């Protein structure tokens, strides 16, 4: 069982949360002009890293707020939590 540290409610059971997947995916500019490959890259292609992972969570059965989490996908250890409008933090001793 994972404990997810909600910035507002503290550590809560993963059951209360909805995982929003990879963070910092930006919708490409120029929707009228970009080609199909650019759309495919935005819609479907993912980093899916083995190691440091920046992702979004929503406390769906709690405060219902969204936030970012940095997690190691090998150990599932959560290394940092930060707000939706913040840039991804560096994790000391770890390269992303």
């Amino acid at each position, binding site marked *: 069982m994972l404990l997810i540290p909600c910035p507002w409610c503290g550590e809560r*059971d993963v059951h209360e949360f909805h995982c929003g997947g990879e963070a910092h995916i930006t919708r490409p500019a120029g929707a009228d002009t970009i080609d199909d490959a650019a759309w495919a*890259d935005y*819609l*479907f292609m*993912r980093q899916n890293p083995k190691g440091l992972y920046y992702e979004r969570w929503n406390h769906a059965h709690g405060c219902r707020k969204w936030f970012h989490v940095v997690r190691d*996908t090998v150990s599932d250890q959560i290394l940092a939590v930060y707000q939706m409008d913040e840039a991804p933090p560096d994790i000391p001793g770890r390269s992303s």
Partner: protein
Amino acid sequence: MQKYSIFSLARNALSRHENWREAWRSPEPKPEYDVVIVGGGGHGLATAYYLAKEHGITNVAVVEKGWLGGGNTGRNTTIVRSNYLWDESAGLYEHSLKLWEGLSQKLNFNVMFSQRGVLNLAHNLHDLRELSRRVNANRLNGIDSEILDAQGVKDFCPLIDTSLTLRYPVLGASLQRRGGVARHDAVAWGFARAADALGVDIIQNCEVTGILRDGDAVQGLETSRGTIKANKVGVVVAGHCSVLANMAGFRLPIESHPLQALVSEPVKPVLDCVVMSNAVHAYISQSDKGELVIGAGIDSYVSYSQRGGFDVVEDTLHAVVELFPMFSRMRMLRQWGGIVDVCPDASPIIGKTPVQGLYFNCGWGTGGFKATPGSGNVFAHTIARDEPHPLNAPFALDRFTSGALIDEHGAAAVAH
């Protein structure tokens, strides 16, 4: 290859079974091969076997970072069926089911394929309509499939509680009588032994650490046991395909999640078919050893941990106990996780990549075991001819650019 038969068994019994030969060699890797397959699970070993058997390419190595069949081949719930919705999937999975039907004889290895019937339960009107649509699609594609009402389910599998007092009552089911289960380890071992007999080198404890490229073409692999050159490399690494794609310099539309399964203590035969339910999320069968084999769901987050959350197991057991009240006092013996590579459309990717000579067979999500022989068969064709087999052409990576997705979320038993 030492042929297995009743006579060889009797002959070896006379010498106290001390003279059986090893089922496959464990050679040192050669510096160069015509084709190297990365991943010694069922799909990779099947690919090597069909390369040698049907395409005459025998200078082949299979490199495996752990032991044969130690990944998802040894972690799944062994269900085989072909009742998928779309024509593309029907072609691929039915091709595989037909290969299963003669596999033990072809490999001279008992894969214990047992066509005991697969039920997919419906718990509401929408389920029933969806299953009816799928059954009709199956029949138009020449795949055996039928609809049962609640009484039909009770007759086919008397253990299921079909009373209307259930929170999610059983209203009916689809039944594929040719579906069933096979012994997962035996599938890996059978393909390994048959491939080895045709000259394929099977190299275990050999982890790929890099993919060598000359411009746009693949040249070989860096591994923990040295450099292996090859102009054709087939990657079949469930649970790590994004990692390998990253080495080759491109991205895949895949995310990796833990999927769990568990087995109970062994009991006398009680359940003689496979029962699956998407809606309440339970699937269950009984192994020949007597254990109930139960498939749980995936965790919603990306992880390579090979273990999942207990809440997922708990949800599945709730559903199993409601459907089968007699299992409420069964004790669970073991529980484990495997990492499944999930595509956005719940269909696999089999074909060429942006790198010349590099082929990927991945993204089978939660249901790759059933496709083992068919997947190896069409992937071998793709590698040998440098063009896809007609059956796997629709499953190319570029469908995510063209938009020609093959959405099988309804037919995949585990919600993705």
